[in-house]
């Protein structure tokens, strides 16, 4: 269902979509039954002359069943939904599959910046690649992200990946994603972060493995930093907030 409105571009997108459909079927059934029951009763027992009201307290056994049986069925449905919800949550948020690569995602008022280890695969070395607003990743590669914030609470969201995680100042939050579809997708900030909140957009560019390797080579190392199309390497950690604002 979500697929009609949005592309799915990560391995866990479909598990969230399937959970959504499971819940939609279960609660949709209950909603239709309950609304139907209500409107049916309103019609059946509309006021008519000469038909007295029945005196019912709710303690009658044969009538109480109409409450107690749905009551237990609701609990059963809750358990089914919870099993699905916790399974999906566990696989996305509680376990970290072994990483093929790591990226650092930094939120600040009002831009996303990214740090990728260069060809040496080690973060915080001279050949690291820093970009602003654009995250380049390779398809079918499991990434760990280290999420940081320089100032206030932000939220790193890539709808096509079904990924969302708040970035908190003072903490590094680690998570993962594995893109499985080449393309360019939106990055949003989904936590109110000040007057530029709506402008805090970014793009994640999922490339084929070869294209990504070529991009890494082109852009790594301080020597070529100045040649990049994206305003990389401008991201000096010591830069002040005012300077970083677009």
């Amino acid at each position, binding site marked *: 269902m979500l697929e009609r409105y949005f592309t799915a571009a990560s391995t866990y997108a479909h598990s969230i979509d399937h959970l959504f459909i499971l819940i939609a079927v279960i609660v949709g059934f209950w909603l239709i039954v309950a609304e139907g029951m209500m409107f049916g009763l309103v019609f059946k027992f509309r006021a008519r002359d000469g038909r007295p*009201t029945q005196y019912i307290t709710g303690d009658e056994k044969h009538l109480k069943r109409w409450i107690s049986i749905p009551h237990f069925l609701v609990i059963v449905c809750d358990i089914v939904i919870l099993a*699905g919800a916790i399974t999906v949550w566990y696989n996305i948020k509680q376990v970290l599959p072994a990483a093929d690569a790591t990226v650092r995602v930094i939120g600040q008022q009002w831009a996303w910046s990214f740090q990728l280890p260069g060809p040496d695969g080690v973060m915080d070395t001279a050949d690291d690649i820093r970009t602003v607003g654009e995250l380049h990743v390779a398809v079918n590669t499991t990434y760990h992200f280290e999420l940081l914030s320089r100032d206030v609470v932000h939220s790193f969201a890539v709808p096509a990946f079904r990924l969302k995680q708040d970035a908190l100042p003072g903490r590094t939050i680690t998570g993962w994603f594995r893109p499985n579809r080449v393309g360019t997708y939106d990055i949003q900030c989904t936590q109110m972060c000040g007057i530029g909140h709506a402008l805090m957009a970014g793009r994640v560019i999922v490339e084929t493995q070869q294209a990504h390797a070529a991009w890494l080579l082109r852009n790594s190392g301080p020597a070529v930093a100045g040649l990049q199309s994206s305003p990389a390497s401008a991201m000096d950690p010591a830069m002040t907030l005012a300077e970083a604002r677009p």
Partner: protein
Amino acid sequence: MSTEVQHAEPGFFRKYLWSTDHKIIAMQYLFTGMAMAMIGGYFAYVFRMQLGFPNQYVPGYGIVTPGRYNALVTMHGSIMIFWVAMPVLIAAFGNFLIPLMLGCDDMAFPRINRLSYQIFLLSVLVLLSSFLVKGGPFGGAWTSYPPLSASGAYNLTPIGATLWLLAVALEFVAFLLGGINFTVTTMNSRAPGMKMYDIPILIWMIILANVIFMASVGPLIAGAVMLLFDQTMSTGFFDPTRGGDPLLWQHLFWFFGHPEVYVVLLPAMGIVAEIIAVFSRKKIFGYKTVLYTAWAVGFLSFVVWAHHQFVAGIDPRMANIFSVTTLLISVPVTEMVFLYIATLYGGSIHLDTPMLWALAFIAEFMIGGVTGIFLGSSGTDIYLHDTYFLIAHFHYTFVPIAIIAVFAGLTYWYPKMFGRMLNETLGKIHFWGTVIPFNVIFIPLFITGIAGDQRRVYDYAQFAEQSRPALQHLRTTSTIALLVMLSFQFVFLFNFVWSLRSGKSAGANPWRSTTLEWTVPSPPPHGNFAVLPTVYRGPYEYGVPGRADDFFPQDIPD
């Protein structure tokens, strides 16, 4: 109250502005709440216009800049919850109805009651004054997460942020005073013969709401003091660079914030219970079970708060626990709704305006309830958190609570409050003109939410996927439906004012109800009851076999 203590008629000021009469204080809360609802509705109009027709001139406002947009959504949320839902549902209906339904002459602490409204009014003035200060009103969302809210350098509204916090804190003081008063009155001032299970469900619900409020607000007050210190004295409670923790505020806020949902839900459920019983001429199906489910909801509401924080950076293992408790709360809420539907069975249902509102409450609230399951399930919440799906979900709970149930209560008790009937035709026009557009506003927003629209964004032009025309059509549809809904509110305002003088005279008991407030003249005189009543039975004795009348008032001996 006997005739020997009749005073000289007090002047206008003492009678209407400095009164200790619970009915006058109820009217003060009601009219203040309605005025705030107009302000909150106006803000909704402005920011929906910006979303429906981006960056165009909004008639009656002007151009909506990003900073102003943030302030508008922040103030809309704060006002509708703290300055509309709470004063109208709890303070206005509670003040008016608690003494009348319990059969006593006034509140236990009339002067505390007066103080409660005065502090509430002060909180309104403090909030509105933030529109006049440098930087304008606070725009950091009604949840006010630090470090954004803690520092003027981040939120650019240093004075507005502090005034917002002060206003919220003052509002809480007002409701603490009111809550003490309501609870003490209900425990001590019931008419002779009114046992605990003879109390109308609405009064039970208001008391439960007050108990939940009083038990949950402490942590938030503590948080508010710390945030105030962070803002004004440069302390670092929520500042990670100085050992503080921004997540602490989120826990304190939502520990209050989620029970708050039930603080306003329960009185709304109570209003609906009264109306359904009267207009289907039926005893509430399982009176005690309704109360037990309400207690269960109240208790569980304290252990679900972190479902607002699944992706906020809390320990991910905690999400599982809060998913379980959140889905667990669906059990008593569902059961309560089922009991209300069951009450219709075997009745003789009259579709007068109050009943239409009450039925609409159930029909719409169920949609709000089931869509909450998507968000309470941690797995789907990863995607839907902070999207318009969430916005649509909680408006499907809060609009039934703060708008539909309030209209149900107002149309039902208007004859008692003012002695005259509202016009029924205008009432039905207003009903359909509100409920149909309400659905047209929010059903499209479920879809834009599923398509990834996140909230608090003044313009989606930055996002390639969100700026597709198909999504913009949905946003525009929603905005136009809002304009229709808002314009129909003038029908209600006209009906309200016109009926004050020209409505049909109501008499003491126009709806043929059983509860005590309908035994006194409309409007009730100072002191309420000429002779304090004695109660002989429960509140919903309709269609009792062997009686000529189909209702058996609480105060008539067997």
